[in-house]
């Protein structure tokens, strides 16, 4: 993973007032997306003031279960239920409009409007997911995607280190967290005395220029280390990812997959909440005088996904589940040089029947 850099002398301590001020500066420069409470969950949404933030909440997550509680402190939750995929690879993105004028067809290619975006409060798993999406759409793509790229080029990120992990978090297993190690413009860690603010890019440095702040001391950095260690301790190591990958290639036979095929609804939820599942469909929305071509989220669990010439190649649910899991934990590495899974656990929490992908990997690998 490319690290934008954490050079020395870029560590500051700020208090709550400065944090509020920082948010104000960001709101002036960018359209800010940040975690807010909506419908009883924490969700990234356009946010215009500090007071709207979901600070002081705790998300309790189990397979197929989500609940919010109040908690002492500020960044007391983990990642929101949605991810930056929603911002950079929107669920429905119009690509083209065709209009009929007299007898001529006019083609109008719609590009994102180029406004500057800020994603405030991104956790380690999701920053890793950003790198994964970058590889999919740009870096490892012979034809870099112009739509993704135009949104991506305008993105400014403020990372936050997690001081808590839910029962569905497994970033330590996937090697992506809980420590934010790069890919951010600014990074925050909530400490006893205030907030540790670290700079990861020139743009980040510029943003915090006018901010009231003081140099962080050794003990502040030490406290950050301790917080990260403590958070790590809240998670188990579920499996060894390289070993799992190697063994998965020898587990294609359907007998390994039928047990999960019996439990899975093929509802597509896991793929929709996943921060790296990028599959899309091209939907033609035809009208009488104008038509749109829209890029819409798709899913390998959908019955139309592997349908060729009216025949669905993956009829059984277990074959769709196999495709998904194998892609995430095996093929993705061949394709993009990273795992497709970042260990955020969203697919576990948001599976309506609580299927836990960690257990499935373990079961299949150990069989």
């Amino acid at each position: 993973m490319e690290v934008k850099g954490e050079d020395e002398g870029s560590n500051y301590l700020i208090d709550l007032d400065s944090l509020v001020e920082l948010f104000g500066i960001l709101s002036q420069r960018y359209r800010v997306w940040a975690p807010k409470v909506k419908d009883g969950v924490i969700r990234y949404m356009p946010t215009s003031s500090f007071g709207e933030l979901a600070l002081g909440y705790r998300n309790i997550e189990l397979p197929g279960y989500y609940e919010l509680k109040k908690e002492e402190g500020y960044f007391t939750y983990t990642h929101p239920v949605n991810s930056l995929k929603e911002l950079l690879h929107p669920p429905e993105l119009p690509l083209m409009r065709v209009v009929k004028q007299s007898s001529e067809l006019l083609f109008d290619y719609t590009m994102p409007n180029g406004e500057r975006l800020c994603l405030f409060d991104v956790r380690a798993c999701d920053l890793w997911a950003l790198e994964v999406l970058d590889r999919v759409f740009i870096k490892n793509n012979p034809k870099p995607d112009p739509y993704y790229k135009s949104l991506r080029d305008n993105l400014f990120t403020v990372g936050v280190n997690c001081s808590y992990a839910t029962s569905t978090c497994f970033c330590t297993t996937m090697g992506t967290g809980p420590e934010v190690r790069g890919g951010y413009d600014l990074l925050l860690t909530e400490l006893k005395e205030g907030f540790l603010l670290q700079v990861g890019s020139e743009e980040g440095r510029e943003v915090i220029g006018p901010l009231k702040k003081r140099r962080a001391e050794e003990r502040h950095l030490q406290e950050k280390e301790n917080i990260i260690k403590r958070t790590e301790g809240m998670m188990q190591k579920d499996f060894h990812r390289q070993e799992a990958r190697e063994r998965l290639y020898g587990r294609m036979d359907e007998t390994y997959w039928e047990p999960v095929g019996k439990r899975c609804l093929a509802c597509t939820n896991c793929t929709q909440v996943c921060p790296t599942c990028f599959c899309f469909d091209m939907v033609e929305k035809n009208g009488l005088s104008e038509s749109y071509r829209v890029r819409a989220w798709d899913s390998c669990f959908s019955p139309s996904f592997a349908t060729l010439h009216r025949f669905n190649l993956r009829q059984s649910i277990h074959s769709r589940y196999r495709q998904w899991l194998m892609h995430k934990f095996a093929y993705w590495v061949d394709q993009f040089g990273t795992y497709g899974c970042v260990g955020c656990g969203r697919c576990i929490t948001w599976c309506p029947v609580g299927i836990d992908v960690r257990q499935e990997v373990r079961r299949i690998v150990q069989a």
Partner: protein
Amino acid sequence: MKVGVFKFSSCDGCQLAFFELERELLELSERFQIEYFLEASSENRWERFDIAFVEGSISTHDEEERIVRIRESSKYLVAIGACAVSGGIQSARNYENFEELFRRVYEKPLGYGISRLSRPLSDFVKVDLEVRGCPISKDALREILLSHLYNKSPNLPSYPLCLECKRKLNTCVVVAHRQVCLGPITVAGCGALCPSYGRGCYGCYGPVEKPNLEALLEGYKGLMPSENIKELLRLGFNAYNPNIRVML
């Protein structure tokens, strides 16, 4: 293209989509001539139809014959709505003791031959396209007409509602609010209307192909006993859909 609109046992609600589409239908009147539509016109001609839209379920002996005649007169037959696709709400009787139920509702025999079962068109004739919903949406109807116009296959979803629900950025009511939602085994197309208002889907678009009902019942055990969920399905609009009837 000659179009016929027909109805069987149903509430007439799906046919209303044609009236909602008035403006477009007028614009398209050169391409589509509505030859037969009892609810809309007093002049009806029954010859050959390029497209027949059929609402309603087959639930009398007379209807069994009439649907065969429509099929024989039509090139392309479209079943519109839960009644035509699945048998409709009236198929709740399919899971009861018919004679007893009949006696409870009617004092004396009706003057026509009512069948024991209320069944979808596809139990009797070949159906070229099924449009889900109770009622269908005018957008689906427009898509079918335009696809004939543009000679393409109509873009109607076969995927589950959850995909549409998530594209709409809804919060899942099962996971976050402990509600029973039939979205995972129900076909999309309604715009995830119910979950968008914070309640579970009750399946008016009917089951997906090969729904994994057993897994849903098992997974929802903590929310509602399996028997009650099955009862919900048996009393629903799509209880007798071929994809799910054997499981109920």
